[in-house]
């Protein structure tokens, strides 16, 4: 259905179900209980899940398929954000033109950078993209202040009067979709549970589903096969009379436009942008997300993005007192000992956990979490049937 085979269609349905029911799934613990701090079902975080999911899906189209490791992808996210916010400041507060503007701006930007960077491959490509991104960051931070707002970035101000808007004097414009406010939410209370359904989240989620669908189609298309050929053996591809450059450039631009889409959505949600969005650590983060979840798999990048954003927002909030509460049932000596052991890995030290998980994934599970899940399923199946797996299933690549 929709041009997908059965397996992909099922995956697609699962993704739709997960995103649409996210307010329920991410809020498994009743409000006010001790576990409520693990609830991720608040609008701000859910929006980040799907938006960075889009960013990682886009990065995966470049890295997962062609093997070109870009270390400057955040530049496209940033440029898209700047494009979107100017659209909102000047033309209309409707989010759709802003998002489209973000995609177009970052697409053009990616075309220019990709045209130059793709002359080289391997580590040189990584350094080139990194250099371009750092340049964009430095310029946005300093010289281009009239356009980018410099260090403080850009926000929608009371003085902004977009052309197509009927704001009253002094009223601060708010992002909307044909009058539907992005920040409006509907609260559903069932017993002790409180579920929030946020307009902005659902718009972002629908965009992510579309982006995900597009990425499945790209993965399964002849174009996607060409990109895989670039990854596996570019020389052989050249000898068969094909020029790899147009394909890689197209992948680069698509990937940049995905980043711009994510940037535009970020602006649509919180109507602000700053240059730190383009800093190279932000580029490193999307690399982490994609590898962690599983590069060149369809669902991996989304999982990776979700995991990192969850750790960033939930794990980082846990402090020593909460740890003491958890281990309170143990004798005092053991409690203090456990808290001392665990403390460096959570709270402000969550980056340490992230780094260790990331290294473990690169060393032991090059296919990321998706491969881990697959191996686990195989293991469970083998236990059940007690028959050795056939060669076919042992050799198959992670689900794509």
């Amino acid at each position, binding site marked *: 259905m929709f041009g997908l085979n059965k397996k992909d269609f099922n995956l697609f349905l699962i993704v739709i179900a997960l995103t649409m029911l996210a307010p329920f799934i991410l809020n498994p613990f009743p409000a006010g209980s001790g576990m409520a701090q693990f609830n991720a079902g608040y609008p701000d975080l859910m929006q980040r899940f799907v938006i960075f999911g889009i960013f990682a899906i886009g990065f995966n189209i470049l890295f997962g398929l062609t093997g070109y490791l870009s270390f400057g992808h955040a530049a496209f996210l940033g440029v898209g954000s700047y494009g979107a916010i100017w659209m909102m400041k000047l033309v209309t507060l409707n989010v759709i033109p802003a998002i489209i503007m973000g995609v177009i701006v970052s697409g053009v930007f990616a075309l220019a950078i990709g045209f130059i960077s793709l002359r080289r491959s391997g*580590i040189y490509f990584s350094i080139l993209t990194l*250099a371009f991104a750092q340049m964009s960051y*430095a310029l946005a931070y300093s010289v281009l202040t009239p356009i980018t707002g410099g260090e403080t970035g850009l926000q929608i101000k009371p003085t902004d009067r977009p052309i197509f808007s009927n704001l009253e004097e002094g009223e601060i414009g708010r992002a909307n979709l044909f009058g539907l406010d992005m920040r409006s939410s509907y609260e559903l209370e069932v017993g002790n549970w409180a579920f929030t359904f946020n307009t902005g989240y659902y718009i972002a989620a629908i965009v992510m589903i579309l982006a995900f669908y597009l990425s499945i189609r790209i993965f399964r298309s002849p174009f996607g096969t060409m990109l895989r050929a670039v990854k596996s053996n570019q020389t052989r591809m050249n000898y068969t009379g094909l020029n790899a450059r147009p394909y890689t450039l197209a992948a680069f631009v698509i990937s940049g436009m995905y980043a711009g889409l994510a940037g535009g959505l970020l602006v649509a949600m919180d109507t602000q942008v700053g240059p730190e969005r383009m800093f190279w650590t932000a580029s490193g983060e999307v690399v982490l997300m994609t590898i962690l979840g599983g590069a060149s798999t369809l669902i991996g990048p989304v999982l990776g993005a979700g995991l990192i954003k969850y750790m960033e927002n939930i794990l980082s909030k846990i402090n020593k007192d909460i740890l003491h509460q958890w281990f309170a049932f143990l004798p005092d000596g053991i409690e203090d000992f456990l808290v001392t052991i665990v403390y460096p890995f959570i709270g402000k030290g969550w980056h*340490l956990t992230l780094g260790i998980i990331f290294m473990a994934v690169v060393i032991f599970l090059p296919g990321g979490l998706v491969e881990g899940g697959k191996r686990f399923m195989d293991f469970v199946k083998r236990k059940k049937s007690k028959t050795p797996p056939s060669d076919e299933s042992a050799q198959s690549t992670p689900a794509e």
Partner: protein
Amino acid sequence: MFKSGTPLTSLAITAGGLIGFFVLMIGLVGVNAVLLQTLDGLSKGSAYAMIALGLTLIFGTLGVVNFAHGALFMIGAFCAVTLSKFLTLSKEVVDESKTDFLGNPLKVNVPYVNDLFGEATGATIIDWAVPLSLLFAIPVMILVGIVMERGLIKHFYKRPHADQILVTFGLAIVLQEIIKFYYGANPIPTPAPSAFSGSLDFGALIGMDPNLIIYPYWRIIYFVFAALIIGAVFAFLQFTTFGMVVRAGMADRETVQLLGINIDRRFTLMFGLAAAVAGLAGVMYTPINSPNYHMGMDFLVLSFVVVVVGGMGSLPGAVLAGFLLGILESFASMREILDVLPGINQIIIYLVAIIILLTRPRGLMGKKGVMEE
């Protein structure tokens, strides 16, 4: 576009360009400013050159792209922090001769070194904590380097470069988070010995009017130190049997192995040496900028650019490019230049890297066949 060419031709081009550049700059802004900026550039470039040298050493011997090299620089800097903290460990003593504002006897902290060596010597030792850390950092850094190579990097020789980049990137995050946990996120001031805290009147030294070219002592020392270290590394590779074997291994690893030489062990030691160079660069850098946990990452990005400009795998290229880019950066931050091209100081290094990579893919002095595509 330059098609090919030996390192010598590119050296000639670089030298010619440099002379032309200096003549032009002297004409534009005068001799004093040019001297000052060159001095500044050399001291800025020292750190780049030392880190890039270590990176190239690792790449040339082991063929590994080490994204954790900035973290080694940072660990070196924190060796200095640790030693100066250790030296100032002190006990509280009641000083009867002084009183605090309430009239009670004043409590003063007396470092343990004072007990050991007497007050005057103790104070001098604390004052000289940073240079003393060099002695402390060398064994620590060699050990860290060897553990890193044997424990982790060894397993990545056969894997693609992308995997090497990723795993060392992860290691860099882990290392800097560990440092952050123990030392906190704020920069820790670690001053130079008070003898070097002032500035040198460089102009007077070379027979010009005083007060024209003034430059901090420590930065000049940093440059001299960098020159010594770099010279020592080259001498080690050039004039010792060990260095000769390592160079042979870099050129043709298999043949050296066939001759019955355990080249892996020597390469491991070279990793330790590269780590020590980065670490020493970090130790000496602490008085210039107070070390914090992410200083390594800030340097790493630039050092990679330096390595690529110099030519992947070329040791002289890395050093040359380090100093050249340092000089370019300091010239680009001059007021006269910024008035014409605002913001150029922020991007000049990246801009040069992009131009070099596109016109001369091998870098300034890169050898043929090293990591081309």
